[in-house]
């Protein structure tokens, strides 16, 4: 643990934080552009060419809006809610392998902030505490719509977490490791997990939608029933944090999908190019972002295509369809692993 190492980790963490924030910022613009395209209109195009400065203008607007705090709110928890949501949304990025390693002067610098050997479990943990921000904020607002939104968010997240964890467990059984960098390394070239776990992938992506509170599972903030859901009483940048955290969650979920099922930074024919290790790493990094962008697009695509579920439908889908399917997937995976070991 020398000074160099600490500086390198610090720089890496800052860069990833910055990238997450910028990507989330421009995801808002992209979302509105795509919504415009789906609804046969132009979308924001006033601020800069193609509305390129729209996120900056929105951010500034949110900062300068009047702060409003309900009189009967729990002051501390009311502020804690959005801050927690934002913090927890950013936590997962620490264990995602953003690329292979770069080698300078014989020293290897990995493009992953923390290669902990329980990476997958760490992701589970962050998922399971992700609901705190929404629950605390919704409860502290002291508003019945916010409370209903928070209660919905909590039960929805608990329900879909199970199926999601089961889907990932099949991956863990296959790779025999809990470390995310190891899981990515095993998908070298075109040997991606999606070819072995198609059912797991479908389960995972459906649950990811539910965990991010995205349409068609955006019941916690369902406008037609709950005004704004858990953030009804929020204004200014606190509201901004809630909305922004949703886009960060989307970005991180896309990154997780790409990591677990689509080979992370691996791409086909990477060994035939004859490039140096560093060049491959840099290309891999961009390939990884290409995959993330594609899944980010899928998130938006679904939101502007499908209508919202009813709450009982949501619960039925989670408990009676997805969870049994996930269990079946685990059993099938176990069966194939056993066959492989005995043949």
């Amino acid at each position: 643990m020398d000074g160099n190492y600490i500086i390198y980790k610090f720089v890496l963490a800052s860069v990833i934080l910055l990238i997450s924030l910028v990507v989330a910022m421009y995801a808002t613009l992209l979302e509105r552009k795509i919504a415009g395209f789906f609804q046969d209109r132009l979308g924001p195009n006033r601020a800069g060419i193609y509305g390129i400065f729209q996120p900056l203008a929105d951010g500034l607007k949110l900062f300068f809006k009047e702060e409003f705090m309900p009189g009967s709110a729990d002051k501390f928890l009311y502020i804690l809610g959005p801050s927690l949501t934002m913090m927890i949304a950013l936590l997962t990025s620490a264990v995602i392998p953003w690329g292979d390693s770069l080698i300078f002067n014989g020293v290897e610098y990995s493009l992953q902030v923390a290669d902990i050997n329980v990476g997958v479990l760490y992701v589970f943990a962050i998922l399971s505490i992700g609901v705190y921000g929404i629950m605390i904020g919704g409860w502290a607002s002291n508003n019945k719509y916010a409370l209903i939104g928070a209660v919905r968010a909590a039960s929805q997240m608990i329900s879909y977490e199970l199926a999601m964890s089961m889907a990932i467990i099949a991956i863990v059984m296959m790779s025999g490791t809990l470390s995310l960098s190891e899981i990515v390394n095993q998908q070298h070239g075109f040997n991606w997990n999606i070819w072995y776990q198609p059912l797991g992938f479908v389960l995972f992506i459906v649950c990811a939608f539910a965990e991010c509170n995205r349409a068609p599972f955006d019941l916690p903030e369902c406008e037609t029933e709950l005004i704004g859901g858990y953030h009804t009483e929020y204004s200014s940048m606190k509201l901004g944090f809630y909305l922004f955290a949703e886009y960060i969650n989307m970005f991180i979920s896309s990154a997780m999908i790409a990591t677990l099922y689509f080979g992370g930074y691996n791409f086909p024919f990477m060994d035939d190019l004859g490039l140096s290790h560093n060049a491959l790493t840099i290309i891999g990094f961009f390939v990884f972002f290409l995959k993330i962008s594609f899944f980010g697009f899928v998130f938006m695509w679904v939101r502007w295509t499908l209508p919202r579920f009813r709450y009982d439908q949501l619960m039925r889908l989670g408990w009676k369809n997805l969870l049994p399917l996930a269990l079946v997937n685990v059993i099938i995976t176990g069966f194939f692993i056993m066959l492989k070991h005995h043949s």
Partner: protein
Amino acid sequence: MMFSKYLFFILSFIAIYAALKVLISKSPMHSVLYLTLAFFAIAGHYILLNAQFLAVVHIIVYAGAIMVLFIYTVMLLNLNIQGEFPKTKLVNIASIIAGGLLMLTLIAVFKSYDMEVLTNPNYNQIGLVKTLGKVLFKDYFLPFELSSVLFLAAMVGAVMLGKKDIY
């Protein structure tokens, strides 16, 4: 290492402060949140002991599942009205007796417990997944499976209780 020493003191302070606040806080919601904070501090202690698996599972189970259910219950039952549980003399006496009994039991336990070291204390890989899995599935296989059956029974019981038209 100095750094982990400081971390230990900071985490211990947070854990004890949060645990005290659980008891002192007037609002049930605050109590629940302080309890969550205490769990996180304890998870930090596990990481200091290089038991990463235990730390993460601790967060998943306690902070992620149990405390979320607690908050859920507090929200649904609207327990936030203060003074709903009046402290009569009877309640006070009963709690003193119960607390005293608990203390007696704890003292008895600590008195009869000699600090036996089960494994090599210098071996710092004990909390990692590989070690734990081997111990769990080799030495303690039957108890492990039996406890999972116990959980299954509890789950079935909960589902049965939750069913409306059972009779």
